[in-house]
C-alpha cells in the first residue's frame, strides 16, 4: 500500500537517514518510534519529497510516487508535520477549503464535513489559524490533511505540545477515521501510550536506520525496549 525502500537522504551534504525500508499495509496504523534526533521527521520529509532523495524509492498505492511534493500529495499522501504549520494568516475554514479545492473536491462540503468531524474547530471557523492554541492547530492540521482525501497519512509527533484531553481526542479520531475511511497511517511518536493505543505494529528507529520491527503485544511486554524508548 505504502512502501519505502532503501531511503537515504538528509539536508545538503549531511546524510541523516540510511537505507530505511518500511511498509504500511492497507488500512493499517503503524507507529514509528525512537528518541529525539533519530531521524523520524527527516524520514517523513523524505517520504513527502520535501527533502531530496539521495537514494531509494517510495511507492503509494502500488505505483511509484511522483518526484514532487505536490505530486505525491495528489497521489494520496497526506502529511501532518511536527509543529503543525497551519497557514497562519488564513482562517480555519480557508485552511481546510484550500486543501479540498486543490484536490478537486467541493470546498464547502469538505469544510462542513471537517467541522462535523472536529467540533472543537467550529467556534473558531472564521478565526485566523495563527491565533489558535497548539492543540487546536494540531487538530486543524489533521483536518487540513484529511480534506485532501489521502489514502495514506503521515503524522509527525501529533501529541507534542498538546494538552492531555486533546491527545485522547486525537487518538479516538484517528482510530475512527482509520475504520470509517480506511486511511492507512504512519505515526512518528515519542508518546508510547499514545502509540500503544492506536498502532498495531511499530518500527523502532535508531541513528537514522530502522533497528527493529515489532508489534503491539511484543512492545507491551518488552519493558527493556520501553525503558530505552522513554529515555529513562
Amino acid at each position, binding site marked *: 500500500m505504502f512502501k519505502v525502500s532503501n531511503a537515504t537522504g538528509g539536508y545538503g551534504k549531511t546524510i541523516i537517514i540510511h537505507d530505511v525500508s518500511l511498509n504500511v499495509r492497507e488500512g493499517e496504523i503503524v507507529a514509528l518510534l525512537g528518541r529525539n534526533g533519530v531521524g523520524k521527521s527527516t524520514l517523513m520529509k523524505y517520504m*513527502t519529497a*520535501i527533502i531530496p532523495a539521495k537514494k531509494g524509492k517510495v511507492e503509494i498505492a502500488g505505483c511509484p510516487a511522483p518526484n*514532487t*511534493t*505536490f505530486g505525491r*500529495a*495528489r497521489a494520496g499522501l497526506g*502529511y501532518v*508535520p511536527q509543529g503543525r*504549520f*497551519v*497557514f*497562519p*494568516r*488564513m*482562517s480555519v475554514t*480557508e485552511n481546510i*477549503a*484550500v*486543501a479540498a*479545492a*486543490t*484536490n478537486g473536491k467541493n*470546498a464547502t462540503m469538505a469544510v462542513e464535513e471537517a467541522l462535523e468531524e472536529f467540533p472543537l474547530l467550529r467556534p473558531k471557523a472564521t478565526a*485566523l489559524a495563527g*491565533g489558535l492554541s497548539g492543540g487546536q492547530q494540531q487538530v486543524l492540521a489533521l483536518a*487540513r*490533511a484529511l*480534506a*485532501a482525501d489521502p489514502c495514506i497519512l503521515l503524522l509527525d509527533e501529533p501529541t507534542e505540545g498538546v494538552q492531555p484531553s486533546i491527545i485522547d481526542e486525537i487518538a479516538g479520531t484517528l482510530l475512527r477515521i482509520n475504520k470509517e475511511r480506511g486511511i492507512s497511517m504512519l505515526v512518528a511518536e515519542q508518546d508510547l501510550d499514545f502509540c500503544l493505543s492506536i498502532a498495531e505494529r511499530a518500527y523502532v528507529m535508531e541513528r537514522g536506520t530502522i533497528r527493529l520491527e515489532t508489534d503491539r503485544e511484543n512492545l507491551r511486554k518488552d519493558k527493556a525496549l520501553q525503558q530505552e524508548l522513554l529515555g529513562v
Partner: protein
Amino acid sequence: MDYFATVLISSLSSASILLIATLGLAVVFGLMGVINLAHGEFIMMGAYSALTATQLGIPFILAIPVAVLVTMIFGALVEIIIIRRLYGRLFDTMLATWGLSLALYQGAVLIFGSVSPGIGMPQINFNVGDYTLAAYPIFMILVAVVMLAGIYVLLTRTVYGMKARAAIQVPDMARAIGIDSARTNTLTFAIGCGLAGFAGAILLPIVPATPSMGFAFVIKAFLTVVIAGPVTLAGSALAAIGVGTGASIVASFMTSVAGDLFFFILTVVLLRLYPLGVSAKWRMKL
C-alpha cells in the same frame, strides 16, 4: 470652505494615485516578500504599452487591458527566469531587480526616446463652489477603491487566491497538500506586475509616459508598503490614504517640496512608532 473641500478632494485623489501605483508592489513585496526594485519600470511599461496601443488606434479604454496583459506576461517571464531562483535571498533579489530596472529604463530610452507625447485627459470638469476640478483625477479615487476590492476578492474568495496565500505563507506545507507552489507563485508575481501595468495605463492621462517615470513612484510605493506591515492590503490602503493625503494637503498649502518632506518625515515617525508596520498587531487576512 469650498477651497478646503477642493483641497481635500484633490489630496484624496493624489493619495488614490499613490495607492494605485502601490498595490502591485503590495502583492509582490508585501505579500510575497520579493523586493522588486523594477516595480516602477513595470508601471512605465504599462504606460508605454497603453500609449503604443492608443497610437495604433485602439481606444484608451481597451488599451488598459492590453497594458495589463503585456506586463503580466513580462512579469511571468521575469519570475521564471530571475526571481524563482532567488526566493529568500534578499540582497540577490535587490541586485537582480535593480539591474532589470536599469535595463528596462535604458530599453525605453532606446525605443521611445526620452520624451514622448502624452495623451489628452478627458475634458470633463465639475465645480465645487467657485472652483473647477478635472474629473479624471477625482475618478482615480473610485479606481483605487475598485482595485483594492478586486484584489481582496481575488485573494480571499477564489481558489487561486487561497492557494496563492498558502504557497506564500508556508511553501512546504502548501506543496504537501498538493499545491504547485512554483506555478502559483509565478502567477501571483505576474498579477503583481499586471497591477503595476494597470497603474501605468490608467494614470497615463495624468502622468505621461517617460522612461524615468518609474523612479517617481517606486520610492513612495516602497515606503507605503513598509509602513503598511504584514496586513498588506488594508495596511497599504491606510498608509497611502493617511500619509499620501497628508503630504498632498501640505503640498497644496505650502510647496510640493514641503509635501514630500512631510511624507518622508511622517514615514520616519511611523516607522519609529511601528517598526514592523502599522498593521503588525491586526488580526486580519490581508
